[in-house]
């Protein structure tokens, strides 16, 4: 038994391939037989991933030494590498056609998330300019939140909340996207680009679209990849100045 454990432990990435393979196998079987294809296999697999993450810590299940390979397989490098590969199926004409809508959705998405987030935070008692800005930035993504918070000198507990907000957003996007896709017209490249720009949180958009329709992934990823940069650009600078002007 100890030998088996040792082999798994020292071959983390390979073990991760096996774990994910088993999750996929189970999920697609579950999707086909239990839900009769109503819930896509990918969506079930992603939810199982999230449940696994709950048993770990900061790095999800990867905090358990046996599963450390999941951090390599599911890390930003592999994610972005495979996202780029999906461009093979992307249609340049579609991208050009949705270009303007994509750019607008980015601006609207970052601005809207920031101010809605900030206002709700304000109503819940975080009334100073720094907290407003940091919480609003957290509503953009869990990367924009801490970048903004540390840039403007927010307190560490507010920064922690901003990260948590971003993670909630990412998880909610993952779970809710496939469920509401048809109600918001998310079934073509055009709306996928708008969706990526409006929501922005890369992992949420990536997982949500994968669970909805993998063909849409390249389009959503295309705009979402600009979101965090735009948020990190606007929140600590432009938006913070606006907030300071309004709040004492």
């Amino acid at each position: 038994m100890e030998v088996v454990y040792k082999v798994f432990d020292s071959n983390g990435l390979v073990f991760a391939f096996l774990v994910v393979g088993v999750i996929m196998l189970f999920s697609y079987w579950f999707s086909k037989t239990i839900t009769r294809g109503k819930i896509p296999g990918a969506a079930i697999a992603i939810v199982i991933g999230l449940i696994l993450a709950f048993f770990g810590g900061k790095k999800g299940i990867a905090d358990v030494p046996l599963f450390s390979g999941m951090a390599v397989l599911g890390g930003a490098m592999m994610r972005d590498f495979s996202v780029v590969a999906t461009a093979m199926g992307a249609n340049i004409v579609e991208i050009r056609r949705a270009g303007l809508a994509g750019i607008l959705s980015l601006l609207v998405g970052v601005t809207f998330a920031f101010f809605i987030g900030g206002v709700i935070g304000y109503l819940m008692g975080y009334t100073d300019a720094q907290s407003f800005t940091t919480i609003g930035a957290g509503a953009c993504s869990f990367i924009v939140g801490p970048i903004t918070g540390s840039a403007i000198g927010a307190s560490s507990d507010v920064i922690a909340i901003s990260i948590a907000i971003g993670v909630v957003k990412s998880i909610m996007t993952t779970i809710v996207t496939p469920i509401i896709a048809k109600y918001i017209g998310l079934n073509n490249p055009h709306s996928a680009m708008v969706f990526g720009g409006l929501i922005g949180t890369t992992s949420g958009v990536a997982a949500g679209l994968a669970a909805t329709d993998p063909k849409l992934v390249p389009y959503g990823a295309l705009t979402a990849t600009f979101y965090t940069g735009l948020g990190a650009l606007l929140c600590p600078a432009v938006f913070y100045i606006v907030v300071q002007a309004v709040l004492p």
Partner: protein
Amino acid sequence: MKIYGVAILAACFLAGQIVGNLIGLWIDIPGNMGGVAFAMFFLILFNARMRKHGYIDTETEDGILFWNAMYIPIVVAMSSIQNVKAALSGGWVAIVVGVVATGLCFLLVPLLSRIGKVSAPEDNHLS
């Protein structure tokens, strides 16, 4: 050979990351801006060009398509390494702000999707 495809993908990926990081540096933000998008454009352009000249064969293409197919498994692994506990430990503020702000952004999708689809953009005031 399949490795050619993987190498092409790697080259596009790295070139995109470099461009994204340079832009990040230029506008003074930590990290990169649009690295993935630039990489995707490089791959699309490269692919179109190679295809035109008949340089790309199915073996090479398979090298790229393998990683394309690995996308969902990688996303599953990614979801298993999320900080789910932080999401729950952030308290009510985190959950309310996260859920409401995201939910409202979802509602904007059909609205903004109209832009550029049928007629010229008239929704500019939204930004």
